[in-house]
């Protein structure tokens, strides 16, 4: 292993600029003559717009223009799209209502976009907005799916507000399994709605250059090429070659910056209308109201066991709240990113899942870190824990008895698990967590009047969603490959252009490690270029933990080509046959001799082209590659959470956290551990603290950090992180991905620990002190009676 190659904990190259305030974020972009946009948003969750009078506002100081949905329609600007088509049980396509960037005749959630006010300053635009007179006809609103399905439609196309009723698996086989079951475990589960809250709020700067008739959009995006594709091909801003999209430094996304939103669409369109750049930066309240939220499922699930405690069947019904409009990938999250994961790490012969996707008067719901997999993992990991308790079996033993052990393993719900060793992670985790000592620790807590519990989460997830042909057959509107271009400069330094996008993941370091190790050059000599459609030709961006498995595989493929070409050049330089050249540690050597030349010299020779004729070999050293994986990757592991509850207050303290993950080959252990830490923090946030609450009129009650509880450092334990490694067989580097595992694994581990401590199962997320205190009262009564 080289000091900066794969497997080395190289310090993050990008951090110096971030922690010294020298990053370049979208809000740092300021253009000569720029204007500022303020979006007038709906205060109502559901209303007709019976008139917008902005004559007075237009005369306010500094106001440049005011636009409404009518102006977009007049310019033939299309609505926002949902890029994944889901088919209902009866074969009908999902019922997608129109999603205009600025409302047309109706608003459907608090925060919906009614008009944009563009002025010289932000304060002027905001003040002018107070003088826009909108006549609303308020309609009844529904924030939850159960009442929405009984109410008047938000969109005429979906009469009972159901976007689809979809299913997966074999219903007959599953019913048969349940008919012969020895024991059935049943659970009702709510997966709480979350607000993503990246540190950097969304922002956009749209510009139009009259001379060349080109648009440029700076935006906080996880996938600028997809943004360009959608803005061009579907929304109709400009053809792709006339639209440049740049996502510079981006301060976190967690999924919420995958999507193409109204604000950037309007900013780039309006920049041509007003002839000046148009800038918008979300404030935190707008972020709460209008960033796509995550999760929000209501589920009933049942697990069937035979007499030997083997799982023989699983059936699940989930109602997914999709919000008021279908966001970019929203339809896929509770379907194809959810139900295929329900098999967990277990050998379950029959599974049947039904999912209803429902419109409500709430912010759109879409992928949020984990996207479907945390919801699925919560269902199966709660079920197996409860089943084990009901059967009187140790939950670890119950899991071990049902693990998939033979690979490849075809589940009844699409996936073919390509490899892993689940029990290895379990054994290591039991050891690290001192599972043997739990009874003694429980007794010690009891002696202090506290309740201690332990909970497992034996999760599997699917990353690097692919191959393109397969996802296309399931309804995806895009392919899920990745591109890379490796440009070797004449002095032997290297620029890597990647379609992946880093918004905190550390690609500038990990991708450079791959190149440094492979070409035997110092890591300082490698720079990673991403996030600009004028530099990188095409790419699919970063989400779903795909950048390692897919993005780096594309780089690896391009490096193969670089090496092949460089060997040809070296052959000319060393006057040897190409087949006799070996490349190792940055040196080209003629096999069996001491004749060699280093990488930098070969790069120079490739460009001066003195040693070969252009007829025999093209000058230059630059190669590109597209990589389409053969399968998803399947990271898996075991997390064990140990809590201590104060029954007097209901406060849950996480005393120990053990994480053992199999991410396949690891590029940078330090960065991976950081990803695990952050993921667990988010998962603990969901389990104990976070929850977006709408009131019955569709007002978001948790619209600021005063009421929406984010996890803080002192809410979190010190993590005990370990690894096991089985190589991923489905990509050349053996990488599985690690970006989401923590937040997928954590919530059921926490809730399983709390319910273990309480001795009963009725606790919902977030398990706030109040909820835990109430539940603990029953426990204390029972203990007193014993």
């Amino acid at each position: 292993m080289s000091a900066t190659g794969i497997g080395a904990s190289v310090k993050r190259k990008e951090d110096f600029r971030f922690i010294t305030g020298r990053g370049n974020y979208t809000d740092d972009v300021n253009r000569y003559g720029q204007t500022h946009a303020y979006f007038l948003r709906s205060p109502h969750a559901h209303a007709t717009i019976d008139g917008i009078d902005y004559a007075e506002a237009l005369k306010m100081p500094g106001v440049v223009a005011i636009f409404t949905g009518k102006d977009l329609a007049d310019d033939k600007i299309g609505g926002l799209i949902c890029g994944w088509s889901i088919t209902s049980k009866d074969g009908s396509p999902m019922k997608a209502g129109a999603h205009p960037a600025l409302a047309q005749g109706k608003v459907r959630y608090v925060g919906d976009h009614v008009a944009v006010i563009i002025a010289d300053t932000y304060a002027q635009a905001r003040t002018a907005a107070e003088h826009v007179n909108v006549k609303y006809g308020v309609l009844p609103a529904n924030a939850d799916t159960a009442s929405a399905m009984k109410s008047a439609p938000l969109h005429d196309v979906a009469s009972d507000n159901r976007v689809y009723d979809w299913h997966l698996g074999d219903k007959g086989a599953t019913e048969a399994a349940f008919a012969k079951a020895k024991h059935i475990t049943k659970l009702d589960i709510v997966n709480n709605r979350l607000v993503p809250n990246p540190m950097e709020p969304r922002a956009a700067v749209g510009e139009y250059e009259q001379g060349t008739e080109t648009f440029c959009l700076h935006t906080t995006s996880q996938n600028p090429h997809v943004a360009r594709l959608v803005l061009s091909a579907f929304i109709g801003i400009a053809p792709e070659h006339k639209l440049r999209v740049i996502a510079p430094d981006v301060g976190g996304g967690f999924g919420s910056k995958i999507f193409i939103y109204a604000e950037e669409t309007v900013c780039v369109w309006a920049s041509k209308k007003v002839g000046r750049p148009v800038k918008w930066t979300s404030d935190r309240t707008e972020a709460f109201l209008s960033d796509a939220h995550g999760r929000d499922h209501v589920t009933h699930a049942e697990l069937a066991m035979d007499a030997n405690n083997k799982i023989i069947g699983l059936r699940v019904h989930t109602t997914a709240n999709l919000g008021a409009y279908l966001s970019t990938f929203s339809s896929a999250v509770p379907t194809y990113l959810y139900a295929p994961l329900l098999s967990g790490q277990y050998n379950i012969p029959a599974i049947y899942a039904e999912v209803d996707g429902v419109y409500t008067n709430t912010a759109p719901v879409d992928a949020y870190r984990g996207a479907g997999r945390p919801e699925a993992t919560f269902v199966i990991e709660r079920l197996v824990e409860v089943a084990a308790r009901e059967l009187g079996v140790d939950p670890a033993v119950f899991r071990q008895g049902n693990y998939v052990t033979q690979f490849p393993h075809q589940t009844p719900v699409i996936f073919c698990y390509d490899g892993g060793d689940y029990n290895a992670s379990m054994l290591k985790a039991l050891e690290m967590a001192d599972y043997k000592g739990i009874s003694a620790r429980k007794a010690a807590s009891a002696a202090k009047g506290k309740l201690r519990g332990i909970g497992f989460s034996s999760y599997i997830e699917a990353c690097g969603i692919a191959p393109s042909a397969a996802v296309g057959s399931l309804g995806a509107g895009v392919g899920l490959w990745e591109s890379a271009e490796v440009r070797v400069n004449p002095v032997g330094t290297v620029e890597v252009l990647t379609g992946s996008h880093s918004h905190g993941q550390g690609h500038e370091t990990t991708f450079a490690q791959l190149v440094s190790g492979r070409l035997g050059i110092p890591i300082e000599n490698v720079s990673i270029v991403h996030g600009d459609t004028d530099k990188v030709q095409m790419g699919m961006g970063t989400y779903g933990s795909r950048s390692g498995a897919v993005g780096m595989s594309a780089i690896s493929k391009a490096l193969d080509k670089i090496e092949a070409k460089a060997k040809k050049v070296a052959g000319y330089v060393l006057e040897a046959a190409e087949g006799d050249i070996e490349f190792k540690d940055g040196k080209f050597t003629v096999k069996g001799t001491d004749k060699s030349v280093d990488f930098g010299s070969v790069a120079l020779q490739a460009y001066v082209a003195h040693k070969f004729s252009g007829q025999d070999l093209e000058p230059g050293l630059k190669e590109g590659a597209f990589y389409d994986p053969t399968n998803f990757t399947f990271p898996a592991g075991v997390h064990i959470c140990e809590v201590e509850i104060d029954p007097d207050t209901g406060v849950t303290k996480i005393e120990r956290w053990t994480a053992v993950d199999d991410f396949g080959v690891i590029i940078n252990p330090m960065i991976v551990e950081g990803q695990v830490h952050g993921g667990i923090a988010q998962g603990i946030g969901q389990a104990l603290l976070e929850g977006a609450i709408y009131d019955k009129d569709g007002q978001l009650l948790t619209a600021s950090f005063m009421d929406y509880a984010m996890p803080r450092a002192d809410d979190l334990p010190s993590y005990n992180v370990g690894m096991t490694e089985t190589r991923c067989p489905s990509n050349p580097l053996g990488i599985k991905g690690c970006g989401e595992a923590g937040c997928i694994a954590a919530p059921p581990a926490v809730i399983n620990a709390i319910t273990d401590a309480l001795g009963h199962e009725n606790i919902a997320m977030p398990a706030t002190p109040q909820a835990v205190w109430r539940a603990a009262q029953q426990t204390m009564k029972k203990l007193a009676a014993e």
Partner: protein
Amino acid sequence: MYEFEYHHPGSVENAAKLLSTLPEAKLLAGGHTLLPTMKQRLAAPKHIVDMRSIRELHGIHVKDGHLVIGAMTTHSHVAESALVNSHLPSLAALAAGIGDPHVRRRGTIGGSVANNDPAADYPSAVLALNATIVTNQREIKADAFFTGMFETALKEGEIITHFVFPTGIKGAYAKFPNPASRYAMVGVFVARHGADVRVAVTGAGANGVFRANALEAALKGDFSPKALDGKGVSADDLNTDMHADAAYRAHLITVMAKRAVTAAQ
């Protein structure tokens, strides 16, 4: 935020003059309540009168056995003050638990008490410790000062200049923070004044900070956590919100009171 005019008088007298002559003028202390509401456009003063450069409002000293704390003294100064730590350690501990380091370096005792946020920490200390609020016009006893949620006995344009706290009081503050805001969801300050005991509760009351008479009576006879067994505050006048209902708050009041008594021993 709307446009406003900024003033920074050098004396309380000048500040009072500005307040009485300028229309829609507002005092600015640490700004940690006022500025966020202005940014959200919930408050729109035309004039801001910043007290930062009024020297007489800053600082802590002991006079006639009393601790005198200037209105513009920040939470971190109170928390770290050697005088407060030796004469009223319970007050220093309370200040150290307000918000986060940024908030503590800007927020002031005067601003917090004048604002009387129903979830703020300081009002419970002022009430339980039986402090005197001194303004540019008069002295106000704590029992007469807090008149309701965000409401006080302060008159239009009246400026708190300092607080006078009795010293040598055994007391402690036990705070149950709101999981989101970390303001008090329930905060109980217990103080033993010789034979008398005062218990002030913040975060829970529908009308802001209040004294818990039943707890005071129980503790007068026996200043021990056991004395509070079975004692409590009725849930009727307590807050219910998405974080905690009145019954849970009522329960927490007794739990926090016991913890405060234990800490005050």
